[in-house]
């Protein structure tokens, strides 16, 4: 108890200094949490698009980005006919812009695709989809920001399209996106006869390995990956996740320097007090424990504050009109635990030098020079 009291007393003695250190950790944690959650959420949403009613994704081998992948339509038709395949849906991705919305994700799909067939249509009829080349269905949020309703014509990119329906999905990209008939999308994006990917559902998931081998044998320039495999191996996802953690780590490094500075000052200003503890039987380990305890407390309080701030930032981002639907603000316990652990490790690392210095203080010298 006294040990904890000593830790608390030392921190409260220089409140402003302690608070600044805590704020440093808090901002770092908030930044890390926000960036990681936003990017992980975005990755989750994108992989959700791919895994919609499917287990395997087939795309062009060695392509750096799915938007650049080109899968021949003939391959999609052939794969759909394989006995192990329940359905195979070609999907063409594209990015278009509209007035006031610089980025809208466009999905070129067939009428039988689950994204259309199983979506909740809030307006229009799904049977109308694909009847005309200039027909589109809008995600509900896309309809809101385009102020469009069924029957309207909307400008998208360099064209004008007729809205035949509005669908509501839980996926931000889909809800803020445009669904075009596949052939219309191929024409619009100058990718006639091709799609970006084929999403495949098998009758029996245990045949996934056999399916992937067949893809490899029949189409050497294509690759089939199960959803989990794809999420782990897709380079864009890996780059995004690594970037998020790297940005957060840089923030924490700065926070750690703040803690180190505070702890150094804290030790230097109470050399005599540490000497008193030593004279009263405190071991070097106990003295070190005090210093590490202080930095750990600063880090943990900073982390708690940072998590609160980060959650707030995420909510603000989620509610920002321009980002509606694109931000998944749900905090994942694993991410929170990693962020807290990193904050704690940063604090402890920051206290390393001060603790060693404190442990080496010779009581007799500190007391002699009163």
């Amino acid at each position, binding site marked *: *108890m*006294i040990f904890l009291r000593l830790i608390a*007393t030392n921190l409260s003695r220089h409140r402003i200094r302690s608070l600044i250190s805590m704020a440093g950790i808090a901002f770092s944690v908030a930044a890390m949490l926000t960036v990681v959650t936003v990017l992980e959420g975005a990755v989750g949403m994108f992989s959700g698009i791919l895994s919609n009613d499917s287990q395997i994704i087939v795309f062009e081998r060695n392509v750096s980005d799915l938007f650049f992948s080109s899968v021949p339509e003939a391959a999609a038709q052939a794969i759909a006919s394989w006995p192990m395949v329940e359905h195979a849906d070609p999907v063409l991705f594209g990015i278009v812009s509209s007035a006031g919305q610089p980025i809208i994700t466009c999905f070129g799909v067939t009428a039988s695709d689950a994204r259309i067939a199983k979506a909740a249509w809030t307006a229009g009829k799904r049977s109308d989809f694909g009847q005309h080349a200039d027909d589109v269905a809008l995600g509900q949020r896309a309809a809101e920001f385009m102020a469009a309703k069924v029957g309207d014509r909307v400008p998208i990119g360099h064209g004008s399209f007729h809205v035949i329906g509005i669908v509501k999905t839980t996926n931000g990209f889909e809800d803020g996106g445009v669904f075009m008939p596949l052939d219309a999308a191929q024409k619009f994006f100058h990718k006639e006869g091709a799609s970006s990917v084929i999403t495949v559902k098998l009758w029996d998931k245990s045949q996934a390995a056999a399916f992937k081998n067949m893809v490899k044998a029949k189409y050497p320039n294509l690759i089939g990956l199960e959803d989990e495999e794809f999420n782990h191996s897709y380079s864009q996802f890996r780059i995004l996740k690594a970037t998020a953690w790297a940005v957060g780590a840089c923030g924490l490094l700065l926070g750690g320097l703040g803690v180190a500075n505070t702890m150094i000052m804290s030790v230097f200003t109470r050399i005599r007090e540490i000497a008193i503890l030593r*004279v*009263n*039987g405190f071991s070097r380990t106990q003295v070190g424990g005090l210093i590490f305890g202080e930095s750990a407390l600063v880090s943990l309080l900073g982390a708690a504050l940072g998590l609160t701030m980060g959650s707030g930032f995420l909510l603000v981002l989620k509610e920002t009109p321009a980002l509606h639907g694109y931000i998944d603000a749900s905090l994942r316990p694993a991410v929170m635990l990693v962020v807290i652990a990193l904050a704690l490790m940063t604090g402890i690392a920051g206290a390393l030098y001060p603790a060693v210095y404190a442990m080496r203080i010779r009581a007799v010298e500190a*007391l002699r020079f009163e």
Partner: protein
Amino acid sequence: MRTMEQESGSGRVVLCAEGVWKSYDDGAVTVLKGVDMEVSAGQTVALCGPSGCGKSTLLHLFGGLDEADRGRIVVNGAEVNRHGDLLRLLRREVGFVFQLHNLIPDLTLEENCLIPTVAAGTPRAMARARLGELAERTGLSHRLGHRIQKLSGGERQRTALCRALMNRPRILLADEPTGSLDEQTSEVVLELLLDLAAGEGVTLLMATHDRGLAARCDRMVEMHDGRIHEPAYA
């Protein structure tokens, strides 16, 4: 740590210095020049001499806070050196009282006194019982929850005395314990120091340059220029 059994004429020797030399600044300043001294269990001994004669240094050596350049320091039969169990010495064998009380100002009287028990890992209930007992005897029971800044000089020194005795050490090393107090408070603190030493059966070695106070001890030892000038045991 080498154990030794030593007896002097008046009882078991608990503090022993044999040919102890100590210098600072790479030998530029020699403070102790071959000190020989023995203190028997239960004795109260005043170590007198002018400032800078080496009294504090000798106390620090006995308490394991510093190491002799030459010679041997033996406390309770065990030699004190870097290979010894210095933590046990500080936690169990000796208690220190300094001229400046050396209390932690932001903690309460109670918390300051409990510090040695935290270091030693004494069970909390036992530590509190001991504190209650010492606080009662030093008249500090009503001040336990007060911060050090709120205490008078005499109360602070009494607090330091309580703290030094918390782990029931067998030896009390007091370095000018009344040096920062007025005459009247000095008298009260010294009386308490001697009473507690007698009551607890503690051996007291007290550095002082006040011969009036020194005369109240069982024995007075003179130090001058780093040497003991009177017989260490008379």
